[in-house]
Each structure stands twice: as C-alpha cells, then as structure tokens.
C-alpha cells in the first residue's frame, strides 16, 4: 500500500531524513518520514516540540540550510522531485506553488517594511507585473482574508496590527500567488482562542475556494479535529502513527497517541481537574534509544515479551490500508487498551467528585 496508492498524489513525501551533524553527534531531527496529501485535503502533523514536525515542513519547502544539514529522501510536489532539484528551481516554486505560514506572525513579518511593501514584494517575485497591479492584488487578497479597510492597512507596519490581523496578513501573503500547497506551521498557536477559530474558518473556506492541499503542523488536537482529513503523529523524528482523522481520534493504536489524546483538557471538567501529562521528556535526537524511541516513556512496554521494545525498533505496520502504527504490542492488546483509555478519559467526572481517587 505504501507505494501503490501514492502515485499521483499531489504532495508525496518518502523516507525524508534531515540529519544535522553536530559536535556531540548527528542530530536525527527527521528520520524516515513518509506521507502524502491530495489536493483539497488537509494533513495534520502532530507531535510535541522537538518531534521533527517543523523541520519536516521546512525540508519540504527547501528552507533547511543544506550546508548545516543532510537532507535525503524524496519529496514530490505534483510529480516534481524537490530534494535533488537545483536550489534555484525550488526557490522558484516557493511562494508560488507552495507557500508557508508561520507560527508567530509578529516575528515573521519584517518590522521595517509596511504590509503593502511586503505583499507587493511577494507578488512581484513570481509575477511580472507593475507595482500598481501588485498593490491592487495585495489589497484584494487582504480583503479576501477578512481584513477591514485593506487600503489603510497596506500602509501600516506589522506592529500596528493585532495578532489576528497579522496572521491574516501572513495568510494573504501566502495565498497571493495561488499556491497549490499551503504549509501552516502552528498557525494559531500565538493567537487567542476566538481569533484561533476565525483563522481556522478562514483556512477552511480558502481551501474550499482554491482547492489547496494543506499540511497543518500543530500540537493542538482541537485544531486538528476542526481541519484535518488525515493525521500523522510524529515522535522523535519519526512517524509513529498515521491514518484518517477518525482512526486517530477514535481508534488510536499507539501508546504515544493515547497519551496525546489523554492530555487534551476537557472543558466540562472543572479547572481543578488534573491533566494527564505524558510522563518523561521527549528523547534527545542525538543518541536515540536502541529499541522503540518511545519506550522510556511508554507505560505498556512490559506487556511485550522478551524486552523487544528495548532492542528492536518497531516498523510502521499497516492495520488497514490507511491506518498504520509503529508499536510492538499485539493488535488485540492495543485495541483493548485503547478502548479502556478512551472510555476512561471520556468518563472522568468533574473535579471535586473524582479528585480523591486519582491519588
């Protein structure tokens, strides 16, 4: 399945590796990541900080400095391979065929140039048009992403705008040349909740209108639930589980995914309710454990006989054609624990009544 169905996919990432040589050893930031996205679909990459999700997206865009990192594998964008392509070729695709929006729109916009200038620049790199035409396009796009009185905003500097407006400007900038792939790296993390919802709605509308393929990088499972068609869960630079959104949310099979789902706060439980964090720290990407990367933090590794989790790296095994997981637990065991954990999370009682039995 892994190769058979991927042909013709709009974005097809195969065995992507990004290794940074350092004085302490090679940092395997991304280690053999494979996934694909169709046009008009959204793929979410979730994981903790340091799981390699941002580096993955930057490697796709060709934004990883090839002097300090070794990038291998294949990235096909509409059939064109990017990792081995000439940098100039990838540059000409950036901002045109594939665009990116970043986490913190304040630091991601140049503080010394007006919004108008930065948008016009983005238009004119890829289109041979006059300043006035570019300015008109910029204005229209600002209007399209829901910025009131765009004419005036063009003359503003980034610091004059609110966080939500700035992120809209970033989105407008990314969409100016109608890219077919949009990579959104934590697009809502720096925003407050109501603005988050607006930005997500905006992304969804724009996707429907333009048929863009979206790669959404986030650690916010709420955003994932709202936008994604498929989910890739990353841990320690690898994909540990991937599948359609319903499989990930309702039939997760990897202990790390269970942990992620369990650590989502529930609004109906009071504020005294303790979250369930995943114990331990994300792994150092320099000397990864010999066996399963998640083994040191996995509460179930003892269920696997013969210390297999300590010595053998699990493969990404398909459960169904779309759903794959990297775990040594038996499928029956995984299903059983998953049901147990999900029902436990769902059945937790509001704080005060259940507080005691936790201890």
């Amino acid at each position: 399945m892994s190769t058979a169905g991927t042909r013709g996919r709009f974005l097809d990432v195969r065995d992507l590796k990004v290794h940074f040589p350092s004085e302490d050893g090679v940092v395997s930031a991304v280690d053999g990541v494979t996934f694909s996205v169709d046009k008009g679909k959204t793929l979410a990459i979730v994981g903790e900080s340091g799981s390699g999700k941002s580096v993955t997206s930057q490697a796709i865009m060709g934004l990883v400095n090839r002097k300090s990192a070794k990038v291998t594998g294949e990235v096909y964008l509409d059939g064109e391979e990017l990792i081995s392509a000439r940098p100039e070729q990838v540059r000409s695709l950036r901002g045109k065929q594939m665009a990116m929006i970043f986490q913190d729109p304040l630091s991601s916009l140049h503080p010394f140039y007006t919004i108008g200038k930065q948008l016009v620049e983005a238009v004119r790199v890829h289109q041979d048009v006059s300043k006035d035409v570019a300015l008109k396009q910029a204005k229209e796009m600002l209007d399209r992403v829901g910025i009131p009185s765009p004419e005036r905003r063009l003359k503003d500097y980034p610091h004059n705008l609110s966080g939500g407006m700035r992120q809209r400007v970033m989105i407008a900038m990314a969409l100016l040349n109608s890219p077919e792939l949009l990579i959104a790296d934590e697009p809502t993390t720096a925003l407050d909740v109501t603005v988050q919802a607006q930005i997500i709605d905006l992304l969804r509308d724009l996707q429907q209108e333009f048929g863009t393929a979206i790669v959404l990088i986030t650690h916010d499972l709420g955003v994932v639930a709202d936008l994604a068609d498929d989910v890739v869960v990353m841990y320690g630079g690898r994909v540990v589980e991937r599948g359609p959104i319903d499989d990930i949310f309702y039939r997760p099979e990897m202990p790390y995914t269970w942990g992620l789902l369990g650590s989502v706060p529930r609004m109906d439980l009071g504020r005294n309710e303790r979250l369930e964090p995943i114990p331990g720290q994300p792994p150092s990407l320099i000397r990864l454990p010999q066996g399963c990367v998640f083994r040191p933090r996995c509460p179930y590794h003892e269920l696997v006989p013969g210390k297999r989790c300590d010595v053998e790296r699990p493969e990404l095994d398909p459960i169904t054609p779309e759903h794959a997981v990297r775990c040594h637990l038996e499928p029956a065991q995984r299903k059983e624990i998953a049901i147990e954990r999900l029902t436990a999370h769902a059945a937790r009682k509001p704080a005060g009544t259940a507080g005691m039995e936790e201890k």
Partner: protein
Amino acid sequence: MGAYIVRRLIAMVLMLVALSMIVFLIFNALPADPARLTCGKACTPQVIEANRTRLGLDKPIYEQYGTFVKGIFAGRTYGEGTSVSFECSVPCLGYSFRKGEEVSTLLWNRFPVTAQMALGAFVLWIVVGVSVGIIAALRRGRWQDRTIMGFALIGYSFPSFFIGLLLVFFIQIKWGLIGFEGYVPFYQDPAAWFSGFILPWTALALLYAAFYARLTRNQMLETMGEDYIRTARAKGLRERTVIGRHGLRAGLTPIVTAAGLDLAGLLGGAIVTEQIFALPGVGRLAIEAVVDADLPIITGTVLVAATFIIVANLVVDILYAVIDPRVRLA
C-alpha cells in the same frame, strides 16, 4: 516627533549645564593655582596675588562659574577696570595665559585637523569594518570568516599607540615611504595633505574596523536567524534580495548608533593618534594643556568634547526612529 525633539533639546541643555558645573568644579579643585598660570617663571608672589584679585579668582567658586558661563554667551573682559584689561569674545571658553590666546580660538584653529582625521578614519573603518563583517557573517565558520575574525581579534587587542608606532617605524622610518611633513592643509598641497593623513587614518581605522567587523558579523548572524528572514526565503525571494533588502536593513541599524557615538568621540580629539603622528589637533591641544596644567584649555576641550557626545546621542536617537518604524518618539 517635534515635541520629542524639543524635550530632548531641553534635556540636552540641562545636561550641558550640569556637565559644565562638574568640569568647572573639578578643575578648580585641582592643586594647580590658576593665578600662578597668569605670569611666567620669574614671577613674584605680589604679582600673582594682584592677578588673582584682578581676574576675580579670589571670588567664591559659584561666582567664578557665573562669570565663566556669561563669558560663553556674552563674552567677558579680563582684568576689568584695570590698566591691562582685555576682551574675550563670544563664545569665551577662557583665556590661556601660557599660550596668550583665547581658548575658543585655540580650539577653532585645531578643530579642522581633528575633524579631517576623524572623518577620514570614519569613512575608512565603516567601509572596511562593515563589509568584512558582512562577509564573515555570510561565510560563517569558513576560512573567510576565520581569517577576518582572526585579524579583527589582532586589531582589536593591539592598543592604538602600538599600531601607530608600528606604522611610523616601518612606513616612515624603515621603508621611508612617507615623509615627516605632518599636517599640510589640503589647499596648499593635496598630495602632501593625503600623505600626512593616511597613517593616522589607517591607525585609527584599523582599531575601529576590527571592532565594527565583529559587531557587524554578530548583528548579521543574529538577523539572518530571525523569523522574518525565513519568511523572505519562503516567499521565494532570491538569496541576494533576502540578504540585501531584509537582512542588511535590520542588521545594520544598531551599527548606526555605535558609529554616531564613535565619530562624536573622535571629533573631541584623539590624544594618542594625534600625538604619535604630530597632528596639531584638539587631542594634541588637550595633552599639551595637561602637561602645562593649563586649566582654561583643559576645561574648554573637555566641554567641547562632551558636547559632541551629547549632541551625537540626540542625533542617533532621532536617526534610529527614522530607520526603525517601531521606535515611537513620544
């Protein structure tokens, strides 16, 4: 912005007043007796005392300060009401009895030399320092970077008198490439003018260029790691544009501050360099005055040098607001 500048100007005046008081106080607290300076070696105590009364040096210090300040704005008459009185015209910073000249005239005569030295060195060190700093940043960790930073470290650690003396020894004495004519005004002989200045320019510029190379490199490295640089690349801009339009603009802004203050500092005189290359500038005047304990000159040069720094501070702050739209001058 207008209101800001007015407020800053008022603050500047207050600062200058405070500064002049401190300078005046310090130099009057020195053991050197200003009255003793008024006449030569064969001077009787009677003459000294007579001069003290005539010049008002027996008056309380605040009264003397008042006379001094009035002199700057309205001029003053030395030895008023006596047979040997003379005028000191506006701006009167005092009178040097040793040199028999008004301090302001002395400064005015010396300043062009210092200004030419400072400006020439400034242009040289900014061009060299900033450009090699940019190269080092863009070639970080490679041989270009290591070479430049190596030289910068050497330039940075050698005191200016050492570099100056090396230049004198090799270029003037050993190889005889440049003569010892010293300062020749430009209008008299441009070639001689240039050969008189090239060594002090080099000596000063080497030191500052080393500092600016390091500063520029660090600023550029920091800027090129900013998120907006990544955005510029993500737009598909050519690397040239990313560096030129997005990197330099932000990376070089702090250099403006440093450059303004350093230039102002030099305009107040470069004591060591002027001494080594026998340039008759403000720094040389100051060191001569110190050796002679010529208090009026010392007070005058310190005041003028400090004024340069204070004015430069204001200019730099205003310039910064023009460059960086985030800086609100309110």
